C-alpha cells in the first residue's frame, strides 16, 4: 500500500471515530436521569392528581427537552424513507423542500452568472470602466443580501421572486470581481500572440481570454455558490412558503428539534456537495503553466 493511500485510510478511520465520539457524547448528555425529579414519593394521591392537572405529571419520565439519539434516528428514518410526500402547504417531504431551495439558488445564481461574467469581462478589458465601476462595486459588495429584501418585496411584490433576487444580488459580486481580475491579468504574451495572428476580437475573447481567465472565474463562481447557499436559508426563513430555510423555521415553531437538527445536517451536506461540484469544474479548467 502506498503512503498516500495509507494516510487517506487512517484519516477516514479517525473521522469515523470522531463521529462516533460525538454521537456518544450526545447519547450520554440526553440519557434519562432516573433519580432526579420524576418521583411520586412523599406525595399524596390528591397532590399527584393536582400536579397532573397542572401539566406536570410526576410519573412521566422527565425529559431534558433536547431530543435523544433514538428520537433523532426515528426522525431521520421517517424523512429518508419518504422524502417526496406532499400533505399541503406546511407539510412537505424534505426532498421537495430542498428542490425548492435549490431551484431558487439555481435561478438566482444563473442570472448572476449571465450578468456578472459578461460585465466582468468588459470591466476587466477596459481600465476606464474598471475605475468607473469600482466605487459602485465597493459600496454594493459589503451589503448583506437580506438588507435588499424589503426593497425587493416592495418592488417585485412576490416573495418567491424576491428570494431569487436576493440570491442574485449576493452571487453577483464575487463573480464580477473575480472575472474582472482574471480577465485583466491575462498574460501579455498570449494577447501578443493573438495580435500577431490577427485574431478577431470575438475569437480572442472566447479562445484566449476566457480559457486564460477561467480558473479565476470559476473561483468567483465557487465563492458565490457558497454565499448563495448560506443566504437562501435565511431568505426562506424570512419569506416563508417553501424551501429548506422555511422548513427549519416551521419546525422551530412546531418545537420539533429533531426536524431542525435533521434540516441543519441536510443543509451542510448539500452545501458540501455544491462546493465539491464546483471544485471538480475548477479542476477541469485549471491549466499548468
Amino acid at each position, binding site marked *: 500500500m502506498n503512503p498516500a493511500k495509507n494516510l487517506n485510510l487512517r484519516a477516514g478511520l479517525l473521522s469515523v471515530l470522531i463521529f462516533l465520539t460525538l454521537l456518544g457524547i450526545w447519547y450520554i448528555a440526553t440519557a434519562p436521569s432516573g433519580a432526579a425529579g420524576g418521583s411520586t414519593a412523599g406525595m399524596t394521591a390528591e397532590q399527584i392528581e393536582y400536579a397532573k392537572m397542572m401539566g406536570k405529571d410526576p410519573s412521566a419520565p422527565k425529559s431534558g427537552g433536547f431530543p435523544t439519539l433514538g428520537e433523532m434516528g426515528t426522525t431521520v428514518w421517517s424523512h429518508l424513507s419518504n422524502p417526496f410526500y406532499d400533505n399541503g402547504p406546511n407539510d412537505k417531504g424534505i426532498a421537495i423542500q430542498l428542490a425548492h431551495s435549490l431551484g431558487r439558488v439555481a435561478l438566482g445564481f444563473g442570472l448572476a452568472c449571465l450578468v456578472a461574467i459578461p460585465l466582468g469581462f468588459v470591466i476587466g478589458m477596459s481600465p476606464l470602466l474598471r475605475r468607473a465601476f469600482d466605487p459602485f462595486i465597493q459600496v454594493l459588495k459589503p451589503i448583506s443580501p437580506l438588507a435588499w429584501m424589503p426593497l425587493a418585496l416592495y418592488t417585485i411584490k412576490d416573495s418567491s421572486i424576491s428570494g431569487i433576487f436576493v440570491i442574485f444580488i449576493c452571487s453577483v459580486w464575487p463573480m464580477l470581481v473575480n472575472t474582472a481580475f482574471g480577465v485583466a491579468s491575462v*498574460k501579455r*504574451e*498570449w494577447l*501578443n*500572440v*493573438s*495580435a*500577431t*495572428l*490577427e*485574431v478577431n476580437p470575438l*475569437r480572442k475573447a472566447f*479562445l*484566449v481570454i476566457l*480559457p*486564460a481567465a*477561467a480558473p479565476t472565474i470559476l473561483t468567483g463562481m465557487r465563492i458565490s455558490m457558497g454565499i448563495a447557499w448560506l443566504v437562501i436559508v435565511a431568505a426562506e426563513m424570512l419569506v416563508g412558503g417553501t424551501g429548506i430555510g422555511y422548513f427549519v423555521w416551521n419546525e422551530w415553531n412546531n418545537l420539533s428539534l429533531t426536524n431542525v437538527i435533521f434540516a441543519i445536517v441536510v443543509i451542510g451536506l448539500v452545501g458540501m456537495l455544491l462546493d465539491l461540484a464546483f471544485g471538480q469544474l475548477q479542476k477541469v*479548467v485549471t*491549466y*499548468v*503553466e
Partner: protein
Amino acid sequence: MWSDVTQRATAPAPDARDPQQRKAANVTGFLQIEKLGKAYVPAKPVFADVSFTLDKGEFVCIIGHSGCGKTTILNVLAGLDTATSGNVIMDGREVSGPSLDRGVVFQSHALMPWLTVRQNIAFAVKSRWPEWKAAQVTAHVEKFVALVGLSPAIDKKPSQLSGGMKQRVGIARAFSIQPKMLLLDEPFGALDALTRGTIQDELMTIVRQTQQTVFMITHDVDEAILLADRILLMSNGNETPEGYRPGGIAEVVVNPLPRERTRASLHHLDGYYSLRNHIVDFLVTRAKAH
C-alpha cells in the same frame, strides 16, 4: 558590466575596420527600417536614427547589451509597439500593426498552456486560413510539428514538454502560418547550451529550406555567427562629455563565412576568430553596458 571606461575611450573608431566587415549598401530591401527612434523621455531617446534593410531570404541578427532597445525594435517590426519616430516598410507597405505576414517567436515561447501542441499550432493555422476544413488544418499542423521533430509529443500540453520542446513548438507555430518574414526575440535565451545547439541547427535547416527572411535578437555571439548573413551591432544610449548620445546601430557586420557552415565545424573556418573577436571587442569596449 565588464567594460572599462578608459578602454572605451581609446577604442578604435567605427571606420577603422578590416575589409570583411564592410557596411552592406543595400537600399532597396524587402524590409526597410528608416530613422526609427523610441523615446520614453523626449530628451533622451533609448535609440534614434536606426536605419537598416533586410533582403528577401536574408538572416539578420541584432546583438547588443540589455536595455539598448533590441526588443523594442523587434516589437515595432512585429507591430506590437510603436516607434516615436521613423517608419518601417515591408514589401512596399508601411507596418502599422501586427500582421500574419510577420511570424513572431517569443523568448518565453508564449504557448497557451490549456491547449495541446496540436491545438496551439492549429489556433495559428486557423487564424491564417479561417476557410480551411478540419482535415486540411490537421494535415498542415502535423507537417509543421514533424518539421521540428515533435510528432510523438503532438497531443501533449506545454507543461509536459521540456523548455527546448516548447521553444520548438513556438518555432513551428511561427513557421506554420507561412509568414513573409520571421521575427525571433532571443528564442534560445532560456535554454541550456546543448539544447540550444540542437535547435539552432534545426532552425538553420528550416530557414535554408524555406528561404525564410529572418530578423533575430540574440545575446550569443556564436549563435549570431552561425545563423546570420549580417549582424547588426547595437550600442546603448550613454552620456558623453558632449551630451547624451542615444543608442543605435553602431556597425553592420557582413558574415564572410560560407553559408553552408555547421555548428560543429564553425570554429575551424578561416575568418571565424577574427569575426568573433571583432564582435566581442565591440560588446566589451564600444557597446556600453548599463
